[in-house]
């Protein structure tokens, strides 16, 4: 296996052109996806180092490793990098970029050059944030609440705000590209009812990117104007209202949670159908629940502000709507479970991640309902309960989904298989590490440990030690794939065109695909997830 050599190379998107320039000036969506993969992974590990430092400080009750100021910069850096530079782009910009055109039978995204521009905007914004981090960082948290950010915090707030602004346009252009591509570029026969659920999920995600991101963009512009030119918009000393900032901020930043989770939900549908060898149960419901989440997601933002001094009637309405968004999420989980029922379930690495996703997302989602309840929310606001809740959704959901999808499509992207044994081991380590890290935080929060403090009373130490121990295990669980996936690029078993015997257009082209994705223009005369027709063919692996 170590000597596995590619058979006489067919021309594919990887070897069609050579040299740095052929990558940096490419307009091929598959190459841009790989550019994103390298840069997003880089930011993931930066954010990870910050997380590790936070967990190290919290190992002991006293503030010994760092002091309060540094600690504030650590959690702000962690949040800003992870939210804007990892979670938001990770699935759409990497797997979405690679797969959206192939899955609908197109040669490329609608606007290939704008796609490349998106990546450059991401890189410029990323460089700015790294510059901020290296020259002292910001201590506002990733939420930049006014008036602290515009009147008191370090002036680096301006550069950080501009970086997030620029990064927002990267996200807007990706979303715009996806929507237009899905509307206009589908192969003959690829009707909306035949669109894979990963495409539906990315379509819904793109709606949020296009409608929400401009609002955070203008909010940050106003923040920068207030900070630099002292225009009175949010600062009460200038007559402004800080609540307006919170409303505008969360109008984007709550839907942004669905930008993160929806594409991973799309991956789930692909994985569960493939490894259960069944058409996804309730296809239309799963498809439309993505759109429902995108729409409802815009109506719940103020649940981040229950203690901020809103009117109690507004709070009641937002609480109600927040419960309501549990419905489409539950539809997905129930339909995935129903798909597995009486399916021929097998346990390859991607499916292990899918199991992890369902379990962790369910916990994350249900604790979201706790938080939607006004009384409980007031009790646990700004405690570790909230931290645990959104990490179950963001890390347990988004990252599990991404890793599952990455393993699933790795043979298509690179033409090589990953080592299955190590893959399963890493999935297991990640699952254990994750729960050990974040489950204790639910308890910590419930008994009253506030978030964003660098020291705590000694009675909280036991659970914090567990959490820190879990974080190191989780770190190992993430380093594993980094190592063996890179290893597999050279030494992995050569992948066939369809190693999983999976349905979908992406498996009907070669691995890796040619530059224009298909050797002849595809025509779609089959339904999505037609596993009943594929069942009898023996697995190639």
């Amino acid at each position, binding site marked *: 296996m170590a000597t596995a050599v590619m058979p006489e190379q067919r021309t594919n998107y990887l070897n069609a052109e050579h040299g740095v320039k052929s990558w940096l000036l490419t307009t091929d969506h598959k190459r841009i996806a790989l550019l994103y993969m390298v840069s997003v992974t880089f930011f993931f590990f930066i954010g990870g180092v910050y997380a590790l430092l936070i967990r190290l400080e919290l190992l002991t009750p006293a503030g010994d490793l760092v002091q309060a100021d540094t600690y504030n910069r650590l959690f702000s850096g962690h949040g800003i990098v992870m939210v804007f530079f990892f979670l938001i782009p990770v699935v759409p910009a990497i797997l979405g970029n690679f797969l959206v055109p192939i899955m609908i039978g197109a*040669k490329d995204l609608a606007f*290939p050059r704008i796609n490349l521009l998106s990546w450059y905007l991401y890189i410029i914004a990323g460089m700015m944030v790294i510059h901020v981090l290296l020259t002292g960082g910001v201590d506002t948290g990733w939420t930049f609440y006014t008036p602290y950010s515009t009147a008191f915090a370090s002036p680096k707030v301006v550069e950080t705000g501009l970086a997030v602004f620029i990064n927002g346009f990267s996200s807007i252009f990706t979303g715009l590209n996806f929507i*237009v591509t899905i509307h206009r*570029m589908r192969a003959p026969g690829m009707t909306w009812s035949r669109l894979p659920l990963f495409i539906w999920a990315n379509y819904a995600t793109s709606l949020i990117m296009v*409608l929400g991101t401009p609002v955070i963009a203008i909010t940050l512009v106003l923040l920068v104007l207030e900070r630099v030119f002292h*225009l*009175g918009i949010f600062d009460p000393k200038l007559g402004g209202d800080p609540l307006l900032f919170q409303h505008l901020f969360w109008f984007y930043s709550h839907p942004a949670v669905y930008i993160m989770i929806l594409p991973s939900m799309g991956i789930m549908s692909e994985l569960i159908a493939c490894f259960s060898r069944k058409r996804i149960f309730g296809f239309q419901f799963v498809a439309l629940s993505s759109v429902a989440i995108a729409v409802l997601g815009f109506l719940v933002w103020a649940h981040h502000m229950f203690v901020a001094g809103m009117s109690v009637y507004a709070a009641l309405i937002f609480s109600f709507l927040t419960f309501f968004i549990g419905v489409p999420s539950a539809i997905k989980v129930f339909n995935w479970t129903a798909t597995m029922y009486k399916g021929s379930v097998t346990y390859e690495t991607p499916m292990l991640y899918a199991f992890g996703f369902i379990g962790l997302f369910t916990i994350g989602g249900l604790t979201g309902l706790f938080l939607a309840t006004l009384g409980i929310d007031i009790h646990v606001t700004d405690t570790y309960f909230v931290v645990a809740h959104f990490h179950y959704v963001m890390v347990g959901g988004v990252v599990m989904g991404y890793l599952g999808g990455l393993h699933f499509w790795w043979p298509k992207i690179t033409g090589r298989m990953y080592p299955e044994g190590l893959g399963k081991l890493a999935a297991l380590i990640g699952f254990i590490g994750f729960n050990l890290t974040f489950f204790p935080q639910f308890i910590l929060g419930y008994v009253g440990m506030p978030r964003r403090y660098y020291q705590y009373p000694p009675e909280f130490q036991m659970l914090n030690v567990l959490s820190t121990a879990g974080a190191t295990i989780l770190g190992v669980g993430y380093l594993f794939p980094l190592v063996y996936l890179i290893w597999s690029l050279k030494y992995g078993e050569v992948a066939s065109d369809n190693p999983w015997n999976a349905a979908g257009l992406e498996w009907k082209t070669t691995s890796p695909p040619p530059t224009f994705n298909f050797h002849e223009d595809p025509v779609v005369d089959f339904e999505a997830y037609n596993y009943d027709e594929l069942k009898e063919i023996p697995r190639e692996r």
Partner: protein
Amino acid sequence: MSASHATTAGSAGAHAGTQDAAQRELRHHFVDMQQQSNTASLGMWLFLVTEVMFFGGMFCAYLIYRLMYFKDFAAASQSINVSWGAANTAILLISSFTMAMAVRCAQLGKQKLLVVFLLFTMLFGAAFLGVKAKEYYDKYEEKHVPGVNFEFKGGLLGHPEYVVNQQHAQMFFSIYFAMTGMHALHMIIGLGLMAYLIIASMRGKFDTSYYTPVENIGLYWHFVDVVWIYLFPLLYLISRTKG
């Protein structure tokens, strides 16, 4: 790479007769020119949706503070010269008309008239910015620019007893400069796009089979015009009566 226009940009005029623009400009990943231009125009419409949301944040801030500080906003609004604003509204409307004529000429293949109308559009756009600069300068002279030197001496029409709150008047001007400044920035980008269209059409890039950029930049121009149609009454005409 796609069917690049690098090969055509310089010499297009020379062989414009032998090959129509649609054949030249069709990109590799589209089936035909109709798919390509439908795609481009959907992209532009969607981009304009993002622009609506972008300006929406500022309109939201405007609305809230106008409700909170209505009298101060009205007084501050009265200090802006409504004639210049009205003149600018007229200028922009005329520029939208010339832009619409430019698109019509592109459809009909009247290449010379196309250039003429684009030049007029650009001219009116520049005139708008000139008037805007004059208005900004007046506000600077009157110390109405937010900051340490801000000072608002005006009162509220018909209510001589009302003492205008300096801070709230300053907030009106904060929003005034933020909104009209962002609009002016869009106008400047629009002028750049006009310059591109003029050069491209003089080089013979467009004919009746391909004029998508003219149409889409036209959409953008009209959008920026529409934003002003809202800004003018909201900022200049809060209350001009004496009652």
